[in-house]
């Protein structure tokens, strides 16, 4: 069984979000980049399954500029065997999915995150599945592989399910797939330097959406404080003033 884990390179989750050029572009200055949190969980689960002997090989792939190589090296240090970087800025989800489709053919299971924490597209995994003609399962919160069959847990609106699905398949992963993301160990970091990171040129593809500009949420009014010994009053305020009770 071969697994491909899609890796999106995103600003650290504590980044203060600012824009430049009249709010038309995200301000990269001083930003720390990380593996998208769900991709990190997906990769961790893939490594666990490899250690358990049910996976032979893990490849990670990213559509991005040279700047994303540090993030891919980190993924190699966590335990991926090799990496593919498709050398282009990720223009929109459709463009990214088209690029990934060109390198995804030989994998049994493709793991994507449920969304990238920057543009919150929730799109690439599903689009890739459709482009490849594979089935997909979304909101996956558990994965086991036995004798070549994948057993998957997923969240549905109003509960959860356990199901089996034939490979090849795209699994779109959320929290629960593993407990904690794995932090690379020193040995992993050393080994990662020697693992292959293959850079491939992008293919021709359209983009169907353009991010025109951004807005920050309007600032909140100051918080109204209620005394601890008089907390009951809060209920009256929520009822009469805020009208939400």
């Amino acid at each position, binding site marked *: 069984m071969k697994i491909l884990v899609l890796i999106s390179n995103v600003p650290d989750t504590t980044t203060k979000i600012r824009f430049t050029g009249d709010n038309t572009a995200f301000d990269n200055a001083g930003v720390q980049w990380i593996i998208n949190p769900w991709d990190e969980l997906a990769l961790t689960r893939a490594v666990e399954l490899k250690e358990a002997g049910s996976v032979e090989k893990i490849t990670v792939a990213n559509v991005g500029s040279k700047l994303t190589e540090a993030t891919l090296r980190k993924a190699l240090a966590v335990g991926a065997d090799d990496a593919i970087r498709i050398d282009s800025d990720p223009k929109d989800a459709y463009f990214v999915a088209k690029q990934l489709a060109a390198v995804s053919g030989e994998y049994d299971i493709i793991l994507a995150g449920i969304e990238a*924490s920057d543009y919150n597209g929730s799109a690439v995994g599903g689009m890739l599945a459709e482009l490849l003609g594979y089935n997909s399962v979304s909101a996956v919160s558990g994965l086991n592989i036995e004798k070549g069959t994948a057993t998957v847990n997923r969240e549905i609106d109003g509960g959860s399910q356990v199901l089996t699905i034939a490979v090849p398949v795209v699994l779109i992963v959320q929290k629960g797939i593993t407990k904690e993301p794995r932090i690379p160990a020193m040995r992993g970091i050393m080994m990662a330097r020697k693992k292959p990171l293959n850079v491939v040129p992008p293919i021709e593809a359209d983009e169907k959406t353009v991010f025109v500009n951004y807005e*920050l949420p309007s600032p909140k009014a100051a918080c109204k404080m209620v005394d601890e010994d008089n*907390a009951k009053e809060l209920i009256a305020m929520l009822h009469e003033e805020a009208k939400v009770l």
Partner: protein
Amino acid sequence: MSVLVYTENWDGKFKKLSFELVSYAAAIAKEMGGTVTALSIGNVDEEELSKLGNYGASKILNVADDRFSSLDNKALSKAIAAAAKSESAKVIILAHNNLGKALAPRLAVKLDAGLVSGVTALPSGFDPFVVQKKAFTGKAFANVQVNADVKVLTFSQNSYKLVETDNAAVVESFDPGVSDGDFATAVKETNKVTGKVLLTDAEIVISGGRGMKGGENWGGLEELADLLGAGLACSRPVSDEGWRGHSEHVGQTGKIIAPNLYFAFGISGAIQHLGGVSSSKVIVAINKDPEAPIFEAADYGVVGDVFKVIPQLIEGVKEM
């Protein structure tokens, strides 16, 4: 020109979310000079279906086919695409929930459409088509232009009002032409949350953090939730510790919710937590630390001990 809206049902019933979707679709159809067709897949009776008309659908396509209950993404997206084509829909709207997020990207590829997920408002323009969505996990909004003839949108719950109309919709049964071979998902087990208010539907959410000290202390929050018909949530460490189930975890890596009223008991207000709740209309924070960042996001606050405050709130609600 038509706007197609996919309305999901839960055991044969629609929820407020479905009606919000139809209201939103009707507003778009009006601007574009078209009509709304609602697509329902699963066993929903005629009376329930006709409710979609009350919010502006003029036609309802009904696919009464049990096979779709396995929620097979490939089969379902094929069915929705067939409806979109038969209606020549220019805009297709789904909910930004687990199912909508799973289907919309597949649908966009099938229809050669542009996808905008998590839209929060009506389009600000139609030529070119520009619509606002959430970005950076609630920390910003983006205006996205779609450069394709067909648009697929997923709609964030609570982003549009319910608008009742006196439309009477015609119900037609629809054959999406999906064969047995299109279904590959074999469901072994389904666990439905019953008897509790679903977190993602709840108008009021009561949430506890590490300040609650342990799972055994949740009785007061449960009582308050019962009294208010609220859903229960928690911060990530609470579900990591196993004090509460994972399905209650909200935040950047958990569920993203936007209720009318969010109570945070003993939650510090880390940026990753706020990412999942900051779109709530009113936020109330109870924390013993006056410097806790949650107070910057909150509308109402009590600096104090949760265990002293909770009984008072329960009493206040009972007297209301």
